[in-house]
């Protein structure tokens, strides 16, 4: 543990609102010299917005960022760099078809360029200086796309360290999910690098892999709903403790309306997926009964998202058989899926779920426009009637049916998207891809109630969820996917919900 010193970086009450969502809600924390600070949080906790704010890509609505005690307004990546904040991007930011040396010095060539012309010798020497800082043996003359992912990451680290030449202060290096694509051995190398880095800089380590954060950090901040909810000493914290903090106890089973979970063992099979193969999953077999909620658990890269998209016709599958009510489905496009009675609530609500500038009514009647038409003509009255009915039934708070949906809160937006599918008389299967992402507690509870209603009405539900707790509470069964295959099925009946650890063990 480092002794409390004046922080190099302090964030005070940072707030950032987007239409319908508050990404940062008065977030505060600090980073002290030569410290490795871990930031953990679920999707939607505000991690990525925070990082974008720290490199000047996003302007906060409120709050201050202090560097060495001085408040700064960051105007962009380059400006943040000149102030001493550099970031190693999760999705790498190197240009693939030029050399390592060019990438490292991109935009800061200094004596590597004379009269506008590259001096290759000087370039390589300068790049080598940066690579030496991290003790890397990568050839600065190599083309970047010939390197492995791990090597490219080292190049990124070396590149970020060029900010040392631009500032007099010791830099703060942000690492965004740096281990997500690395293998075990490469992760060990990265951690050694971080130890090395801390000699000359402070490090902020952002990850969703709790064990790794615990291993590498001096202190950990837990983020939830845009706020820091806990500061943790990794030396006396277990991954399970951290996980609990991460999820947060929102409420008891009532939150999930568990009483409304009706058994469905007798119900007929609704969906059968046999030996499905698509990019990202090798062979997936499972079924869902009418009225059943089936959770699909899995880490990133387990292939569960791919299965969902394939079942909705959003991506093609190369092999396998999908039958819905004993009829074989030909899923050529989402349209074909919708016509067969399948609905889909995407995880990226703002880009994939809604058409923000269009009205609540248009968004809700989008999938089953036939419900509001006579022949080819739209029936305005019928649409208003239908939409009003569902607005009331789903408890959607909107000034009117003609309000642009983008101006509503996230929870109300999501209810409209759910309503879009409930409007259909013949919805047989609803695929929910992280349906509560970014919603507040109240809205989540409402969405849970809707899922229960759907299931009770006999609709089969396929559920992907950010948290295991949510998934277990809502589902009748959970299948666990790992490396593109189903590895285990766990029953999660009402009143006998298993401990998340049972499933967690199978996931990793």
């Amino acid at each position, binding site marked *: 543990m480092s002794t409390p010193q004046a922080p190099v970086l302090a964030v005070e009450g940072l707030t950032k609102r987007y239409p319908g969502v508050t990404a940062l809600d008065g977030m505060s924390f600090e980073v002290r010299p030569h410290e490795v600070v871990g930031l953990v949080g679920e999707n939607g906790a505000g991690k990525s917005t925070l990082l974008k704010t720290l490199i000047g890509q996003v302007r906060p609505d409120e709050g201050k960022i202090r560097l060495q005690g001085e408040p700064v307004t960051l105007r962009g990546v380059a400006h943040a760099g000149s102030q001493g904040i550099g970031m190693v991007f999760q999705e790498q930011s190197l240009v693939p078809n030029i050399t390592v040396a060019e990438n490292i010095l991109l935009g800061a060539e200094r004596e590597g360029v004379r009269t506008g012309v590259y001096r290759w010798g000087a370039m390589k020497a300068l790049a080598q200086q940066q690579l030496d800082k991290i003790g890397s043996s990568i050839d600065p003359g190599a083309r970047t796309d010939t390197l492995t992912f791990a090597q490219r990451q080292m190049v990124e680290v070396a590149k970020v360290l060029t900010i040392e030449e631009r500032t007099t202060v010791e830099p703060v290096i942000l690492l965004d999910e740096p281990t997500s694509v690395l293998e075990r051995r490469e992760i060990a190398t990265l951690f050694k690098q971080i130890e090395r880095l801390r000699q000359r800089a402070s490090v902020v380590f952002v990850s969703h892999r709790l064990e790794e954060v615990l291993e590498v950090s001096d202190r950990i901040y837990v983020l939830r709903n845009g706020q820091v909810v806990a500061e943790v000493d990794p030396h006396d914290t277990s991954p399970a403790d951290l996980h609990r903090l991460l999820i947060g106890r929102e409420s008891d089973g009532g939150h999930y309306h568990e009483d409304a979970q009706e058994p469905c063992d007798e119900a007929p099979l609704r969906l059968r997926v046999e030996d499905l193969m698509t990019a990202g999953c090798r062979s997936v077999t499972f079924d869902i009964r009418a009225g059943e909620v089936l959770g699909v658990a899995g880490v990133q890269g387990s292939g569960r998202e791919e299965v969902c998209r394939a079942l909705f016709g959003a991506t093609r599958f190369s092999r396998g058989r999908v039958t819905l009510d004993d009829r074989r489905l030909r899923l050529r496009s*989402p*349209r074909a899926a919708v016509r067969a009675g399948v609905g889909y609530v995407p995880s990226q609500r703002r880009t994939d779920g809604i058409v923000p500038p269009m009205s609540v009514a248009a968004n809700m009647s989008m999938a089953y426009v036939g419900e509001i038409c006579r022949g080819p003509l739209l029936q305005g009255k019928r649409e208003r009637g239908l939409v009003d009915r569902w607005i009331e039934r789903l408890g959607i708070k909107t000034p009117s049916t003609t309000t642009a949906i983008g101006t509503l809160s996230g929870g109300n937006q999501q209810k409209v998207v759910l309503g879009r599918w409930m409007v259909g008389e013949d919805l047989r299967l609803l695929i929910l891809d992280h349906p509560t992402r970014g919603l507040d507690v109240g809205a989540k509870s409402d969405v849970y109630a809707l899922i229960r209603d759907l299931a009770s009405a006999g609709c089969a539900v396929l559920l992907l969820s950010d948290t295991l707790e949510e998934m277990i509470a809502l589902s009748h069964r959970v299948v666990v996917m790992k490396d593109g295959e189903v590895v285990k099925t766990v029953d999660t009946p009402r009143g006998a919900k298993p401990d998340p650890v049972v499933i967690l063990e199978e996931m990793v």
Partner: protein
Amino acid sequence: MVVVPDLTRAPDRATGSLVRVRGQLARFMPLLLLTALLVLLSLRNPDLLTRNSLLTIADSAAPLIVLATGATIVILCGGIDLSIGALASFASVLTALWIPTMSAGVVVPVILISALAGLLQGWVHVAARVPSFVVTLGGLSLWSGLALTISGAGTVPVYDFAALRWAFTRTWGLPSATLVALVLVVVLGALMRFTPFGRWVSSVGHAEPAARLAGLPVGGIKMLAFAISGACAGLAGVLLVARTFSGAPTLGDSLLLPAVAAVIVGGTAITGGHGGLGRTLVGALIIVLLRVGLSQIGIDTSYEPIIYGVLIIIAVSVTIDRSKVAVIK
């Protein structure tokens, strides 16, 4: 500059209100501009507001209105059709060549063929996943080449005045070409307003992934938009023949830029989604008045393209939805 992936470009608070101001500007600017132009021009030349000169202006505006109306639907989808001028030329040549055998009936096959040409471009755009500006830029050259080939690279005169008489007389005191254009705007406007097609087009333009995942027939919508644009180009070609009594392989080429300018000056965003046919009508009238005005203050017509170019850039800078463009290139 390294382009960092995954930029959330939701507008900040300050830019949020700026966007709203821009939105209001985009909505009312065209009408203000049109009024200002009318007032200025009539101050300079009081004869402008006489019935006859207004009608002449309206008559000359018809092909432009028709072209711009079709182009609007493609632009609302988030695409662009650069082939409309060339396709109109091609259609004019077909019209001139076929009038001797088909007389007044020539309109139907010409518009059908143009619609098919548009549909083909739309199909290539959708099926081969080629950006629409590339497909239609290729189309521009293709239809031009075809028009040159079948016309023998020259003007094809029309002697059968009766065949297209309907397009250059007056009906109810209005030039019939203008009437045709207005009917087209009303019919397509009704299609957009009273059938799901209009909101489908806007949905695709605003948020194509969301439209696709809601089960809309995105490919079909786009193809239909291009077919309509093609049909409009065909109709514009026929109207051009009626004005000049000839078809020529470059007859409609110079209308591409004014047509696109009309759409954008009218307030339809080049990024898709926002806009409508009524706005394009206003935009087209602005362009036509501008043309009249320029000639009145004695500016040579060869300066016109300069004005269109500048106008397009300014209008786009006002109406573009930057949240949709990750990298502006």
